[in-house]
């Protein structure tokens, strides 16, 4: 067993699961989507991206690209939340919540791609 592989797989899976956890629920209902879950998703995605740095293979490049996409979408969602909290005294409307969740749902798609690549890579391993 390779500890590096464990850490790598852990963070990639965690990024996807946290993302899914945040997206899960009624899209426009602020009570179904917790802020700290989004925060955790962003942090874990950041770490997963950094872990993918420096792999020069083709698979590695696609890995990094999918992580960057997820990160971009999540940060966009966080920014939307930030501006919404600025304007209406901390209250997030159903309309804003829907756009935040749909942005994170996009990130979820990228994270799923990441997981698929990882699974494919693992099954292709001969040892």
């Amino acid at each position, binding site marked *: 067993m390779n500890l590096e592989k464990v850490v790598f797989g852990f963070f990639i899976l965690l990024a996807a699961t946290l993302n899914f956890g945040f997206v899960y629920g009624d899209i426009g209902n602020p009570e179904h989507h917790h802020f700290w879950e989004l925060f955790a998703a962003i*942090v874990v995605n950041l*770490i997963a991206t*950094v872990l993918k*740095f*420096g*792999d*020069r293979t083709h698979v590695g490049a696609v890995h990094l690209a999918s992580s960057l996409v997820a990160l971009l979408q999540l940060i966009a969602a966080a920014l939307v939340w930030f501006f919404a909290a600025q304007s209406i005294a901390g209250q997030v409307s159903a309309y804003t919540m829907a756009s935040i969740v749909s942005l994170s749902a996009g990130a979820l798609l990228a994270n799923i791609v990441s997981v698929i690549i990882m699974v494919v890579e693992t099954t292709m391993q001969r040892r």
Partner: protein
Amino acid sequence: MSGVFFIALRRLRTPLVVMICIVMLATVGLTLIPGIDGEGRAVFMTPFQAFYFVSYTATTIGFGEIPFAFTDRQRLWVTVIIYLSVIGWAFLIGSLLALVQDKGFRRAIVAARFQRAVRALREPFYIVCGIGETGLMIVRSLDRRGGRFVILDQDEQRIEEMELEELVADPPALAADARSPETLIAAGLLKPECRGVLALCNDDQVNLAVALTVRLLRPGLRAICRSHSPDVTAAMETVGTYEVINPFREFGERLVLAMKAPDTYRLMSWLTGPPGADLSPRIPAPPGHWVVCGYGRFGAEVTAAIKAGGFDVAIVDPDMEGAEGLPGVRGLGTDNEVLRRADIATAAGIVAGTDVDTANLTIAIAARQIRPDLFVIARQNLISNRSLFEAFGADMTMVQSQIIADECLAVLRTPLLADFLRIARGQDDAWAGHIVERLRRHLGEQSPEFWGITVSREQAPGLVDFMTRFGAPVRLSDIRREIVDRTCDSGKVALLVRRGAELIVLPEDDFELQLGDSVLFAGSFEAERDLFYLMQNANVAEYVVTGHDVLGGAVWRWLRGPPAAAAN
């Protein structure tokens, strides 16, 4: 460059993850700890405010406690943040510094810079492998003539010294092993702008490897290789190397030429020598009995050449290895007794050809003491000993690196010169004497420049434009005129014309030029410049050929119709 970027990213992975963890942990902690606003109510920092505070605290910018002064509970956590972030930064910056000082990383940067420089080369260039004395001489000379090159050498120090060279164009240089094909490819072997490869390393095996790489990866590309042993020379010729230069054999051949055909020898030394040297008088290397001191690679080649010339040789060598069957004396040759036993009293000349300069000078001085009239040939191994050899004043001095550099440059200057040299070697002495006289009559007492032109749209757009509009043929005598005053002869002689596969030696004045002809000229530097203007500018070409001083561009020329015939 992307390679360097990836190495940097991979090395910084751990410190970056540590940094992210610290910043995020601090942010979460700060949002969870309650503070007090101006009116004493408990307030929580928003995640954004906490992140902002952590960012400027971690980077030691420190804007203070906002939006409200902190409580002691908050300050306790901030103290933890400060120490944690200092550790994080120290780790990150330490890793960065270690990376920058890393030898492998630096090499990657140098290699990336080299490859970028090579990729950016858009002019014809040569790859020079080995930048010792010989390589430097060639590079300096090529650079003066506006040539571009890429330099490879195994010795890092030599590459560093290249930076101190005052060259017109900074050549891309890399310390790498030229034996590996990757290195040569990185140096631009496969680029269409690459015009040739010069393998000038001291190690024959490296040169052979380069020749082989060129033959297999870019067949047809000109490879000029240096070789010191007959085996490697033969191997290179098998591989189909364009030009193999064995300095010892070359010198041996020149020596025999100097004995049997002094005028041919003189012509060859002009053709291959640097321009501007005085036309040396005939060197009367006397035929007869010769003494060769030192039977190494050089001695063997010289001995073979002299014997092939039909003369007789005595060898002086401490162990006579490989000289079985040849008359000889054991010894260094630095004392009179040994020289006397080698029949120096009746000898025509002596060759001091060991690979130690002090020994060669001692032999030469000893020989002169016995016979002041003896013809002395001294081999100079190191360029730095030039002043000693000049002070001694041997009749001929063999400088290995000079011979290689001269040969190389002669081939590189124009391929026509190589053709002409081959023809000259095959002719007799009277023929060479005739050419020498002709050059002297036209060009004076200094050895001329040699250059080649091709009558093509790319190289001579003006001349070709004029030739296509002008009804009558343009003759060699026409383009030999001066461009300022066409009644004067600009002092250049056409030595060789190549038309297709046909070679015309010493074309007559009324030779008619055709599109696609290549001509080898000898003449002054000014004459070369004149000819360049004539080739570029149709108006100059018209004046020089017809005597009509015309001005104007393409439209005006078209309106005026075809040019009139010559005025005289």
